[in-house]
């Protein structure tokens, strides 16, 4: 926002420069400076974006072209065969469905439980609340690796190994702290008069939660869901540890099936599969990037 506001003042500053005797030379230095800036930005953008573009280009190359041709070259022929093979040889639809289930399931618990804890800590308040809050916040820096061995053992004892729950429980558990944090920093700003007025009208804590706090939280819910979805959709380590059968594999695991055991991998089909699986999230990101970027910025700078 500050950037937009500072535009007029920048312009008047340029005008001032021209009015000065040295203004012209000053202006030329600025032009050179701007060219260097843009060249640097262009190089950095190529490094960030070209590999992804290359992924898409390769997915429409013929196998022969991929094996023999220049990797930088433009494909001689455009083909969608790779996509057909990607769907034939793997269980791609199944992997996508599993990822959708795990992403929705985890998000459901992250949002509901995060809101409930934040409501108890920030709105209801109670003795010992500070300690409970600290216990939650500790979770932000706990590395996920520590839970792998114990959860694997626990799951195999209670029969949760190789289920959707085996992924949803730790995914939600490790994301709840950030969710509690984001919701309670938002609840700080709901004026207490709102609650007092509702209380006088006879509303209890449950009705107040359902009719006041929940509807007001919508924006924060969107932020929490967007940010977590990126991580959960792409999550690898829990799925790789707790999922054993092909039927439950999420996208990141399923993609690995495309790597041939004998070293002869069908790379163009693999890249087609990769493109199919990254496109949904990439489209959501490109359409909603404002909300997502705000969420990422907010989540981090407040922490």
């Amino acid at each position: 926002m500050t950037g937009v506001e500072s535009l007029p003042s920048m312009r008047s500053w340029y005008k001032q420069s021209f009015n000065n005797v040295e203004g012209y030379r000053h202006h030329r230095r600025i032009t050179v400076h701007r060219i260097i800036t843009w060249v640097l930005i262009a190089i950095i953008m190529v490094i960030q974006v070209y590999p992804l573009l290359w992924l898409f280009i390769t997915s429409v190359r013929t196998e022969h072209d991929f094996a023999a041709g220049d990797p930088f070259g433009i494909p001689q022929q455009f083909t969608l065969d790779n996509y057909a093979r990607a769907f034939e040889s793997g269980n791609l639809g199944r992997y996508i469905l599993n990822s959708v289930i795990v992403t929705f399931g985890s998000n459901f618990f992250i949002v509901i439980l995060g809101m409930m804890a934040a409501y108890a800590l920030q709105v209801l308040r109670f003795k010992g609340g500070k300690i409970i809050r600290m216990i939650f916040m500790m979770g932000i820096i706990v590395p996920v690796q520590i839970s792998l061995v114990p959860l694997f053992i626990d799951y195999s004892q209670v029969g949760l190994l190789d289920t959707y729950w085996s992924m949803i429980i730790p995914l939600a558990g490790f994301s709840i702290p950030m969710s509690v944090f984001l919701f309670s920093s938002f609840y700080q700003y709901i004026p207490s008069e709102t609650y007092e007025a509702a209380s006088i009208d006879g509303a209890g804590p449950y009705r107040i939660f359902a009719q006041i706090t929940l509807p007001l939280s919508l924006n924060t819910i969107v932020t929490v869901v967007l940010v977590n979805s990126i991580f959960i959709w792409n999550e690898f380590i829990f799925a790789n540890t707790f999922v054993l059968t092909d039927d439950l594999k999420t996208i990141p695991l399923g993609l690995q099936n495309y790597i041939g055991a004998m070293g002869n991998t069908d790379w163009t089909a693999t890249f087609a599969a990769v493109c199919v699986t990254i496109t949904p999230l990439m489209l959501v990101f490109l359409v909603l990037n404002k909300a997502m970027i705000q969420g990422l910025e907010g989540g981090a700078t407040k922490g």
Partner: protein
Amino acid sequence: MLPYRSKKSVLIFLLPPLLFYGLGVLMPVIQSLFLSFFEWDGISDMQFVGLGNYAKMFAGDAVFWQAFGNSMIYMMICLVLQLGGALLVATLLMQLTRGREVIKTLYLLPAVISTVAIGFLFQRIYSMDPVGLLNRLLQVVGLGDLARPWLSDTHTVLAAVSVPEGWRFSGLYMLIIYAAFMSILAEIEEAAKLDGVNEWQLFAKIRFPYIRPVWITTVVMAVTYALRGFDIPYLLSNGRHGQLVTTYMYRTAFTNTNYGYASAMSVFIVVECLVAVGLIFGLMKRKVDE
């Protein structure tokens, strides 16, 4: 605070999240601590070995120390790429009058792609046969002698598995630093510019000191993420030259089924993160006080 609330209502709201968090995070942490004092392969009886696993880790396991050294190098490469790249791009963005939003979005794009997909992509970037992007690029600019299979060369594998992680998340830190730059009042910068301050001075004397609190947050994030970095090194390398503490721990647990020793290592990773956070706050806070 709500006037009409009962103990019961507090519990109803608090217990479910605590239960979930307890099951998914707290209980496993305690179990890991417990397991780290035992030797156990998951089948035969557990054997209490006291601090045996820790003694083995610190005194008797050269592979662990190599993995630890690798983790430190991995962290340095990630920090330079992520935070250096983030500072550079955020600074460049500040000088643009248009196109900021598009560039922010494109720079962040790798962050939405799964590590498995990135692993595949970099396998092809580093490959020798068929010639991958990096080796081809080296040939084109006349440095063909440097071309090599980056992931199987023991001298380059560690750097090769570190770079993708740096590349992937630089955008996230750039966003945070850029947002902090934007919160600096325009008047301050304009006054400095009128005083004839150049871009470097503007950065070193005004912007960077101003965003110090945010900088500490980003350093903490980047360091702790790098210390628990796992996916890309695990997916791209098998041998001990590209192995980190995290991947060594994982293979100890799930390939060699040595649960006790693996738990000791996972406790080490947690302690390592806590020590790193403590050090960062200690060092950087003190500088502010001076």
